[in-house]
């Protein structure tokens, strides 16, 4: 079906033009064969050399450890004892072109007695933003109906664990948390937290 192009069958013309080498394969020890092998070898080396920086660039997000940083949530007086309030903080890893995505919300619970609990906004199921309902004292998730008690424990629905918490400290009159990551099951982001009730 395919009409053969004449060039490929004209073996006798090869030696004048020099570009078509369909004659008998040259003996493996010729200079051409040697150049071919050198060419392959050089390209293997060059390929490896260029792959290193490319892979390094691409994989840097995978291997890099991002340390959490102390981030200000504002004066403690914003968080009355016994109540749960929302607070926004500036992501410590922000870029100048992050716009509004640089401001992250979280829930602050001022436990009666002077301690705090700071919860991530993200539902532990699939990360949707949980909302606090002060009357029923529940965090409810708009996605699949997950609910949490005021201390973060699982109350209902699919979430597999209590709300993620941030490590906090009181610095002078300010409340600070260690922030910087999107908490997820693979990296809950608070090494000090003791997870009970992990299902």
């Amino acid at each position, binding site marked *: 079906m395919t009409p053969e192009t004449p060039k490929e069958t004209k073996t006798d013309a090869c030696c004048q033009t020099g570009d078509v080498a369909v004659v008998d394969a040259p003996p493996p020890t010729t200079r051409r064969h040697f150049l071919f092998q050198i060419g392959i070898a050089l390209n293997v080396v060059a390929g490896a050399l260029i792959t290193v920086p490319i892979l390094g660039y691409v994989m840097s997000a995978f291997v890099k450890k991002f340390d959490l940083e102390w981030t200000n949530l504002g004066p403690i007086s914003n968080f009355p004892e016994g109540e749960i309030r929302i607070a926004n903080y500036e992501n410590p890893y922000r870029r100048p072109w992050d716009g509004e995505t640089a401001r*992250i*919300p979280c829930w602050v619970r001022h436990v009666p007695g002077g301690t705090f609990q700071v919860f991530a906004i993200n539902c532990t199921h699939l*990360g949707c933003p949980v909302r606090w309902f002060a009357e029923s004292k529940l965090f409810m998730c708009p996605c699949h109906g997950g609910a949490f008690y005021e201390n973060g424990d699982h109350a209902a629905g699919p979430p597999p664990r209590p709300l993620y918490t941030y490590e906090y400290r009181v610095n002078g009159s300010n409340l600070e948390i260690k922030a910087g990551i999107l908490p997820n099951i693979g990296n809950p982001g608070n090494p000090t937290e003791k997870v009970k009730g992990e299902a």
Partner: protein
Amino acid sequence: MIANAKKKITDAALGAFGWLDDRFHVTEIFEHTAGHHIPKSTSSWFYVFGSATLLCLIIQLITGTLLAMVYVPSADQAYTTLTYLNYDIPLGWMLRAIHYWGSNFMVAIMLIHMTQVYLFGAYKYPREITWMSGVLLLLITLGLAFTGQVMRFDEDAYWGIGIGASITGRSPIIGGEAVQMLLGGPIINSETLSRFFALHVFVLPGAILAIIVLHLRMVLLKGINEWPTPGVLVNRETYDKHYATIIRKEGIPFTPHGIGKDLIAGAVVIGGILLCAIIFGPKGPLGPPDPTMIDAHPRPDWAFMWIFAVAALMPDWAETLAFLVIPPIAIAFLFALPFYNNTGEKHWSRRPFAVLTVLFLYLSLGLLTVWGFTSPWSPDMIAWRAAETPAPFVKAKTPLELQGLVVLQQKQCRNCHAIDGIGGKRGPDLADVGSRLTAPQLARQVIQGGGNMPAYGKNLTPYEVDALVAYMVSLHPPGTTPALDSAKPAVYPEENSKKNAKPEAAHGEAG
């Protein structure tokens, strides 16, 4: 005279064509591509979906390129450029709409194409690679649909990435690292958007073009699948000869004799996309991608709605399985299909299992999608202040019962429990709860929770519980009796076992 001139012109034109043909080999290329011979039986309305999918892709490439001339993939500007496209630049809304509807049509038509190919046995010998490249094209197209939904950088996109990250985070051992890889860092920000942009406009379109070249090459090399006949089996030894005979006996050139229906279908598709674009317009953007606006209510686009539903319906232990184990296995099965089912019957009437598989998949995915859109499992976050109580549920109640209704409303019970259909659908409707549960059962359920209900014990005063229970006991439709005492037999044994399901739920930390 005129005839002479005509002849001269024709000769000149033929001569010019001959010259060009000699340089470009147009005739030869045509014979091997658009003009290749196909079985006459395949010039059918059932065979137009492949070319229609390709047409959608071309529309996507053109509109996508035009959108990219304005769109800025940066977290602080993307949203602004989307609204600029919608409202300021002439016909920008139209291009966004065509791109959005083009993607919907592409996914839908591709699914039809794949179903047709499956039911017609076209994946069998010798078209294994055609099928496998098609599976890759499906995956890339879904990838484009997902990353495209992120390009519409609004609140849904923001929380949608969060959902993607949460699923990724469940990978064993490397979960945290995989999330960083997905987001381009530890958190959702500009780098996340840029990385999805690179995928959406460079990586995935590049891949799809490369694989389409392979796909079409295979269609040309191995031919288009002949219309299957019941009882004609595919046999590796004889099939090639059989196909060659079909082409020799009843082959027609694809262009111009076989392409007519494809052209008409193509025009219909373009018309459909335009019509949808004009009637429904572009999708979104919804609210800005501002994480601090937490009254978001994230929903994926329809192609991923079934995943959203699966996420809500799965028991906890099955979720990692459902998200990270089953999909790769399913894809592997799909991919390898021509190897474990390579020969034999092609016609659907002789392949009941194939037909049932298709029915099962469409029914279950369809049902999950419908559920996803209605999402009865999501609480109605504003029901506690916005849901009304129909008159029959207020009339002739005692003061204590009315107090109970106020508690019910104020304690946000309506977010999950409707009264006569008004309110959240997460929990059972309370319209007839008094005929299902007795006062002690209701009190226990409220205080201790159970099933999927949180415990309200520390949250209600004894007086509030009394009022609430009194109100609910009064809720039994006219003509039904109140529920019997639980001490007597024949009352809802599952309510008792439910209450024991999660005893720890009742022990919230002392506040």
